C-alpha cells in the first residue's frame, strides 16, 4: 500500500497527527527514563577507577549524541525545505533548534561536572568538549538569525542556508579541533575497562532512546505552535476545537 507522504507534509494534516502522537512519545520517553535510571543507578556496578562518578555518563553521552544528531536532522529538514519548498520542513528545522541547543548545553554542563573529579578541572580543552562548545555556538547562531528576521519565508531560507553551511563545516571543525588537541597533548583519561559492563550498556541505550523520544515529543509540541502562528487567520485554524474556548 502506498503511503501518501505529501498528505502528511501538509501543515494541516500534520498538526492533527502530531497532536495525536505527542502523548505516546512523551509516555514512552518517561517510562524509558525510569528504566534507564533504575538500571544505571541500581543494577550497573560501581566502576573500579571512577567509582560512582561514572554514572554521569548515562546522561552525558546520550545528550552529546543527540545534540549532534539533532543538528544533522535539522540541517536535513532545512535542506529539504530549501529544495522542495515544503513549508513544514522549515518549521521542523526551526522547532528542532532549541532542543538541540539544550542538549548541547546539558552535554557541556554534565561534562564539566564529570571532568572536575576525573581530570581535576571543570573544563579542559579536550577535542570533544571544544567541538561540543562550537556546536552550541552554531545552534545559537541559527536561532539568533531566525529570530531576527521578521518575514517567515526569508527566515526559513536564510536559516536553511546557514544550517547547511554549518553542517558542511562541522566535520572540518571537528577534525581541526582534534588535530589541534593532539598537538597540544591535552589531558585524556580513558575508561578503566575496555569493555563496558552489560548493565551499563543497557542503561546507556535506554537513556539514549528516552532522550530521543523526549526530543521528538518536545519538537512536535513546538512545531504545533509554529504551525498555528504561521497559519493564523485560516479557516482550519479558526475551526480547531482548542480555538472554541472564548478568551
Amino acid at each position, binding site marked *: 500500500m502506498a503511503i501518501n507522504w505529501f498528505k502528511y507534509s501538509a501543515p494541516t494534516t500534520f498538526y492533527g497527527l502530531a497532536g495525536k502522537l505527542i502523548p505516546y512519545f512523551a509516555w514512552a520517553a518517561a517510562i524509558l527514563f525510569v528504566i534507564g535510571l533504575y538500571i544505571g543507578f541500581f543494577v550497573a556496578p560501581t566502576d573500579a577507577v571512577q567509582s560512582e562518578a561514572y*554514572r554521569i555518563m548515562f546522561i552525558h553521552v546520550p545528550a552529546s549524541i543527540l545534540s549532534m544528531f539533532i543538528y544533522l536532522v535539522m540541517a536535513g529538514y532545512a535542506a529539504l525545505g530549501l529544495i522542495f519548498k515544503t513549508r513544514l520542513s522549515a518549521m521542523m528545522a526551526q522547532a528542532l533548534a532549541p532542543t538541540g541547543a539544550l542538549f548541547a548545553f546539558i552535554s557541556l554542563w554534565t561534562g564539566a*561536572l564529570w571532568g572536575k573529579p576525573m581530570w581535576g578541572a571543570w573544563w579542559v580543552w579536550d577535542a570533544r568538549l571544544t567541538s561540543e562548545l562550537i556546536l552550541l555556538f552554531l545552534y545559537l547562531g541559527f536561532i539568533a538569525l531566525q529570530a531576527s528576521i521578521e518575514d517567515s519565508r526569508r527566515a526559513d531560507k536564510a536559516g536553511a542556508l546557514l544550517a547547511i553551511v554549518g553542517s558542511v563545516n562541522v566535520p572540518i571543525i571537528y577534525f581541526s579541533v582534534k588535530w589541534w588537541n593532539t598537538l597540544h597533548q591535552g589531558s585524556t583519561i580513558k575508561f578503566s575497562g575496555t569493555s563496558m559492563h552489560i548493565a551499563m550498556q543497557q542503561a546507556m541505550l535506554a537513556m539514549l532512546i528516552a532522550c530521543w523520544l523526549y526530543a521528538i515529543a518536545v519538537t512536535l509540541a513546538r512545531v504545533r505552535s509554529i504551525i498555528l502562528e504561521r497559519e493564523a487567520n485560516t479557516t482550519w485554524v479558526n475551526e480547531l476545537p482548542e*480555538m472554541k474556548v*472564548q478568551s
Partner: protein
Amino acid sequence: MSWADFFAMNGYAFYVWGSYGAALLVFAIEIVMVRHRRKVTLRELRLMRDEMGEMEQGKRYDA
C-alpha cells in the same frame, strides 16, 4: 547499601546529582516553555479571530 549511601554517591554526590539535577531542570524548563508558547499562541489567535469577527459584524451593520 542504605539510601544515605546511595545519595552520598561515594563522595561524588555533588557531581552526579548536579548533572542529573541540571538535566532535569533543563527538561522541565523546556516543557514549561513549550506549553506556555502554545497557550500564548492560542490566546493571540483567538484575539485576532474575535477582532476580525467584530470588523465583519461592523461592516454588516454599516450596510
